[in-house]
């Protein structure tokens, strides 16, 4: 059991939890994730470790409520506990040793990019973060990221920072030159757009892939993604890969595998009292 120490609403559908997980807090590295399960009948949900406090024995998880399972999760409150947390999983980020890195975060992906920016800054790399959201209230982790370097905020409606997409700001930075690596985490179309944008400049671009997972240890093969002409497992070979080699079409397509189930589950969730025959 992992007690929830605190809960903060970061944006209309993004929640931050600080949760007890001492061993994971002690050894996790940027880029790694955990698999969380609420209890009997619940799904195993992969979540990036956004931050950790080894002294307090806690990790920070940032959750965007999209499906039934994530809605169940964000319904928990401090004092509640998460039954299972397994990790840390995945390969740590390969950090640029020196130079200038641009960290691009879209929506909840900003929480994933934050520990990377933090580690880069700690190693003396110059960090510029480009983060975005629909409007002001959807932008998260801006203050935290300011502690790692410059931050460019982009909103679709211009209610905070500049008006426009993160890709526009990234394009200007690339044009300006001197960028050694781009880390981009967010919705798949955003990561693909970033990778396409940096390709002509030959700037190494690392993306973090959120394929469908079960175990997170390489045993099910469900998380396979196309990298160049190979198939790799996002849970053990990733989750971070060279964005210029990722088969984004395949990823987008495979992510729709359970779309009908997800819609059903969400619909059932919002109609309490309706019990399926055979429900236990």
């Amino acid at each position: 059991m992992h007690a929830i120490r605190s809960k903060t609403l970061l944006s209309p559908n993004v929640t931050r939890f600080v949760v007890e997980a001492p061993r994971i807090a002690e050894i996790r590295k940027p880029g790694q994730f955990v698999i969380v399960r609420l209890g009997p009948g619940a799904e195993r949900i992969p979540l990036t470790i956004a931050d950790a406090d080894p002294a307090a024995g806690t990790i920070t998880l940032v959750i965007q409520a999209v499906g039934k399972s994530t809605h169940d999760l964000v319904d928990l409150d401090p004092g509640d506990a998460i039954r299972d947390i397994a990790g840390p999983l995945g390969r740590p980020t390969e950090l640029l040793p020196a130079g200038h890195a641009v960290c691009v975060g879209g929506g909840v992906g900003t929480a994933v990019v934050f520990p990377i920016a933090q580690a880069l800054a700690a190693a003396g790399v110059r960090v510029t973060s480009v983060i975005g959201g629909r409007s002001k209230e959807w932008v998260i982790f801006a203050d935290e990221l300011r502690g790692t370097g410059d931050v460019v905020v982009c909103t679709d409606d211009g209610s905070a920072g500049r008006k426009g997409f993160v890709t526009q700001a990234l394009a200007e930075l690339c044009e300006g030159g001197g960028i050694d690596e781009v880390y981009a985490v967010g919705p798949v179309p955003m990561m693909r757009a970033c990778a396409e944008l940096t390709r002509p400049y030959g700037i190494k671009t690392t993306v973090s892939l959120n394929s469908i997972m079960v175990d997170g240890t390489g045993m099910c093969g469900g998380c396979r993604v196309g990298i160049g002409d190979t198939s790799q497992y996002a849970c053990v070979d990733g989750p971070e890969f060279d964005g210029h080699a990722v088969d984004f079409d395949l990823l987008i397509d495979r992510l729709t595998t359970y779309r009908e189930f997800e819609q059903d589950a969400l619909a059932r969730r919002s109609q309490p009292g309706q019990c399926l025959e055979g429900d236990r």
Partner: protein
Amino acid sequence: MAQQPHLTTKQRMAIDRQPMPAQAAELRSINFEEVNLGFTEQLAILEAQRCLQCKKPKCVAGCPVSVDIPKFINLVAAGDLRGAAQSLLHDNALPCVTGRVCPQEIQCEQVCLRGRPMRGEPGTPVAIGHLERFVADWAAAHPDLVAPPKPEPTGRRVAIIGSGPGGLTAAGELARLGHDVTVFEAFHASGGVLLYGIPEFRLPKDIVQQEVDRLVRQGVTIEHNTIVGRTYTLPELRERFDAVFVAVGAGLPVFMNVPGENLKGVYAANEYLTRVNLMGAHRPDADTPVLRGRRVAVVGGGNVAMDAVRTAKRLGADEATIVYRRSRTELPARAEEVHHAEEEGVQFQFLTAPVEVVGDDHGWVAGLACVRMELGEPDDSGRRRPVAIPGSEFVVPADMVVVAIGTRANPLLTQTSPDLTINRWGYIEADADGRTSIPGVFAGGDIVRGAATVILAMGDGKRAATAIDAYLRGPG
């Protein structure tokens, strides 16, 4: 206890093998309840009386953990179920499991004297597996009557990595010897393949849980959600414990490496079975989804393939087909499973090998393109090698494909333990007692042998426990 009259060999020979009561095929192919219902006490005693009580019993030698078969069977014949249970549990840590999943027809029952043809009549071996299951289930229903005495604690601590049959057996043996045992398991629940691989209709999960609970009552601690190689490394555990037993199985799926394998609707058997068995995806109240194919093609011929195809049938497939590149006689699955699959309406395409998964315009599986094979010269394994017949391509219609052609070693643990010697396939090198290249670290089960059987993993766990005990007590 009711004393049975002494039977002569002739009287024993006159009794026919008692059939295992089972659910009707039409019924069971749509539910997940166990297929075999188990012997009644009456049937068990009758079956036990068929045993000739050989002076030199061949069956014991046929059993990988040398269960004293004539002894427990004789106690059953005499109606002494408690004695039978104590005898069986002494030899076999998980008899509820082995009685259900051992390939008896190539082990104890293959060499049973009653299986030999006599005077022109074909023989039928004593139903050792079914009797073992009967006694084990009796023991599970009467835990107080069979609890082993509490041992003197030795103060030595042993870490076991993996809670499959290998790990659980070693844990039980070591706890019985008084050692302080902690099992580390990557998943949120215990049992390894017994839990996430073998389906409910063959091995009810309550039974696995009962066996695990028995170990916990014996004082074994289980730490779930702990991935050795990530949460801790093997060298870290070696430092914290006096000895370590590694039984992490051979969990990595193998794919066919044909075009179309990443289409939606293609599962590795591991994923398909885990979604159903571990995550309960077949139940309406579970959050984890699983695709319900109407025409399901399962590639492979082992137990895993049979489990997958029979699961597909239960999840509503109209057509569930095994695609196997050799012929019926080479099928590596347990005979009973093939038989049950046939009864349930599973179809078989023998001498057939997939060449491509065909997709539709939306990225879903639309069929499995195959080629017919014929058996050529024997290969390294002594089995005749299948060769493709040119021009024989055809498509098995399918909206879902499950790949069950084997598994490999998972490198997570070994990658982070540089001193541990592995072979070129990534399996851990260990001697007959499980000793590895690191002093105090032992290994067994599928991570040493490659995908094998439950009982072989258990045998490894038992031998390693004996070796670990000797190691801990030291030469002086």
